[in-house]
């Protein structure tokens, strides 16, 4: 369903700070894939998602979604197909708007906006049931400002916002990294539930190797702007964290020894 074909992306071209981040990156995603992405700091994981969602336009290469070339679609145009949750809990919501207003914005992700009401009574019932499913009691606080929620609650709301209209592809960039371990586990569980129940095609970046192994059907490892290792199905299920670490060592000649990958 999605293909990245020889994608190249550099920053600060023509200056001393020039940095070639994505290098001939190729990736093919099938319908229903749940891909976890691991890799050291600066490997280009976030940049890959940003190129997919249109925050950055690559210098060369193509991005094909369902046979449509979307390489030059702007960010808001691609939003029709994409659901996104960011690492920073602040980034996914409008803090001074109510929970239900935020959901109403997300509910219209795939539609053209006009002069009809920004939120209707009928929708509110949908939001109520969806929020109840999160199990955080937020269905009773629908008119609270999102700014009053904790990071974990916000990430849960953002996750709901990203999926309330079924996205063709869900992009998760370390969306549990800013949360404490218990909350992170809860949000991850919700993620897994939502993705499997709706059979969503998903890319999830994580620094937790256990999660990367246990969740999803495919795992890719990135290093210096391209994919250096890929595993799926049975083989992925039998993978050990130590195997992954070894792959890292091989790829980087031991330079990962101090990387935060080791911690998780």
């Amino acid at each position, binding site marked *: 369903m999605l293909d990245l074909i020889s994608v190249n992306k550099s920053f600060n071209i023509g200056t001393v700070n020039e940095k070639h981040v994505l290098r001939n990156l190729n990736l093919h995603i099938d319908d229903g894939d749940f891909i976890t992405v691991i890799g050291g700091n600066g490997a280009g994981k976030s940049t890959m998602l940003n190129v997919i*969602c249109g925050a950055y336009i690559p210098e060369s290469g193509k991005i094909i979604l369902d046979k449509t070339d979307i390489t030059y679609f*702007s*960010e*808001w*145009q691609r*939003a*029709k197909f*994409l659901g*996104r949750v*960011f690492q920073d809990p602040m*980034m*996914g*919501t*409008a*803090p*001074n*708007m109510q929970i239900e*207003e935020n959901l*109403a*914005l*997300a509910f*219209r*992700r*795939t*539609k053209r*906006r*006009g*002069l*009809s*009401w*920004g*939120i209707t009574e009928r929708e509110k019932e949908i939001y109520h049931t969806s929020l109840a499913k999160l199990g955080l009691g937020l269905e009773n606080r629908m008119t609270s*400002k999102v700014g009053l929620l904790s990071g974990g609650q916000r990430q849960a709301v953002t996750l709901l*916002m*990203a999926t309330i209209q079924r996205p063709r592809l869900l992009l998760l960039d370390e969306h549990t990294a800013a949360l404490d371990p218990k909350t992170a586990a809860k949000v991850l569980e919700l993620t897994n539930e939502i993705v499997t129940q709706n059979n969503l095609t998903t890319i999830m970046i994580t620094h937790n190797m256990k999660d990367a192994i246990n969740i999803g059907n495919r795992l890719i490892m990135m290093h210096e702007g391209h994919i250096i290792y890929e595993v799926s199905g049975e083989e992925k299920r039998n993978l050990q964290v130590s195997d992954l670490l070894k792959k890292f060592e091989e790829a980087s000649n031991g330079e990962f020894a101090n990387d935060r990958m080791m911690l998780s």
Partner: protein
Amino acid sequence: MSILLTFLSGTAEGLWWAILTIGVYITYRLLDFADLTVEGSLPLGAAVTAVMINAGVNPILAVLISFLAGCAAGFSTGILNTLCKIPPILAGILTMIALYSVNLRIMSDKATVTITSETLKEQTMNLLKISNVNLNSVVIGVIFCAVIIAVLYLFFGTEIGAAIRATGQNKNMSRALGINTNVMTVIALMISNGLVALSGSLIAQFDYGSAIVTMGQGSIVIGLASVIIGEVIFCHKDHNFAYKLSAMVFGAIIYRCIIAFALRINIFKATDLKIMTAVIVAFALSLPVIKEKLAIRKMKIAHIKENAAQEGKKHA
């Protein structure tokens, strides 16, 4: 009695400036965009109105066309900011400077154009049979503000209105939710400057009786002062949007009344008005910092006292 009269004239003036204040509120608070275009779109509205009324155009039609002229000014700033990626302040300044020339063109190179034909002021006074000029202004001003608040209340409840509010708060999220943040920024700037020009049109008709090319000077600061006064006095918790807009109207009225009363005391001259405004705004904007400093000072004193008390106990 004369205090009452000062109050009445302050209220009348405040109501015209309230429309500008609502415009400033839309950009400054909803869009998070400090828009200096205001200083050019206020005289633009006045210039368009004066020239058109003198040419025999119906005053109400002149008001509407002023609004559209203001929209065009906002459009210019919006394009400079969104397409050319010029920072908000600078984009506003560029349009403002350009408008100075435009306004002089409209006014045929005259610094002041006196309105010689019948304005909305005379028309409404004849119609409503209110003999007191200021009372008539208050009645008409309240009607204008009420209609504008009602329309804006409805508009910002629509899908596009919600998208504008979202754009002002989180552009990243907005784009991820399929909102064209550039278009929303331009729309908000157009509405805001349309209202400011409308305010200029009414000031020219009801207050000055003319268009003055320099009348926009300091208007952004007056608008901000009114926004802040409205918020500090009336907005302490989560209010609905119509309430917040009404608070802006009262903010503008209170600001005008403060100025009117300050001018009655003989220490101040009319030319001191701008420094007074600057002081009010600077004070209001630094209020959060002052509050924090005071709170820390209080804690520090308590801390020192506590330490001293413990020292005392040790020695005892």
